[in-house]
């Protein structure tokens, strides 16, 4: 979030509410839950870190928000570094994998049932993402984010299918001796 807010300031110095509106536009339906304070908290942190400066300007009388935020040169360097980073969130599958193994080993729970419960949860999430995506016009930027969310959930569901296949066979073998 900090890097994203910084990068959005690279276009031009902006008010907090302008940044928030731009974030919401790019995030689409996924940004609707973002609360107003989040952008200001982030801006305050960035200011303390010396990455942005804040200037008071004479705004319109009906606009209480008269602060304009701009990047410092340190902020510009950080944006440039962020853009060339190739870091990527790592899929966090090991925890669930270990849960299944532990449940099976200690006979705490049937791994297949754990997989089924997880599958139902992911299907509901996928349904939410898909319905939101269907409501977006073709080629919308926000739709692209929903598309990514849906594709990842689909990949996770396919992995769960593989988990179910292997763990149901494992159960059969141990019962069969």
């Amino acid at each position, binding site marked *: *979030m*900090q890097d*994203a807010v910084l990068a959005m300031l690279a276009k031009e110095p902006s008010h907090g509410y302008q940044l928030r509106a731009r974030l919401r536009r790019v*995030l689409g*339906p*996924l940004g*609707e*839950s*973002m609360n107003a304070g989040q952008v200001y*908290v*982030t801006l305050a*942190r960035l200011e303390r870190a010396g990455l942005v400066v804040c200037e008071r300007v004479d705004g319109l009388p009906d606009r209480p928000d008269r602060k304009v935020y701009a990047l410092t040169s340190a902020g510009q360097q950080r944006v440039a570094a962020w853009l060339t980073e190739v870091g990527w*969130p790592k899929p966090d599958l090991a925890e669930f994998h270990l849960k299944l193994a532990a449940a099976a080993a200690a006979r705490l729970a049937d791994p297949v049932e754990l997989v*089924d419960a997880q*599958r*139902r949860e992911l*299907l*509901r*999430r*996928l*349904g*939410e*993402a*898909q*319905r*939101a*995506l*269907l409501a977006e016009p*073709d080629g919308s930027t926000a739709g692209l*984010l929903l*598309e990514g*969310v*849906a594709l990842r*959930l*689909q990949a996770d*569901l*396919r992995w769960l299918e593989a988990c179910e296949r292997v763990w149901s066979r494992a159960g059969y073998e141990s019962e069969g001796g």
Partner: protein
Amino acid sequence: MNEFGGVVRVRGLFKEHGQGQGLVRAVDGVDLEVPAGQMLAVMGPSGCGKSTLLHLLGGLERPSDGQVWLAGQRIDTVNERGLARLRRRSVGFVFQAFHLIEELSAAENVELPVLLAGRSARAARRRAAFLLERFGLADRTRHLPWQLSGGQRQRVAIARAMANEPLVLLADEPTGNLDTAATLDVLRIFADLRAAGQTLVVVTHDERVAATADRLVTMRDGMFVDDTQLAGRTGRLDGLIGLED
């Protein structure tokens, strides 16, 4: 409508293929009720019996045992002629491979079932024009199937399936031959039909198709092994992305 209110209803459904050692129970004791206006998705591995189930629901095949009702009418006991009439008028089928008639234009493909149901040519033309426009194909009505993209052909096929305002639309892997964009077009049409109260049963391999349904049943070896209500939890999208601090 029967006392249970389901447009589609089956009890104790079995379908066997082959004999002796080669006997396969494609559908092995299924009970199901699909209320009006619901979209039901059926998933499961290849050969789990999901396509056979769809054929039984639409009167394309007869069960080995069990009962099938469509809007309160038993269809497993209807004679061949009655069944043919029912398939023409009360059920709409959509297939993975479209199955359009290659010699007929998009509009003619949609008009055909209306004419077969005994209505006038004028009524058929009007119905086809209405449906093709609704599905975004107003400028493709005179095209032959080979002149259309896969997604457009499937939309024509859905229009044809809807030609006689069927009680239920049955779709067997409707997006199996389509890319992501065309899949979304089909899903938008399904969402639109459901919003208008259409009952749909969709057999699919695609989790993204299944997830848009109201309810999802999973089949394995001819039986339902899972039944999940998907609709109802709406508007909470914030859990889908992690935007921290």
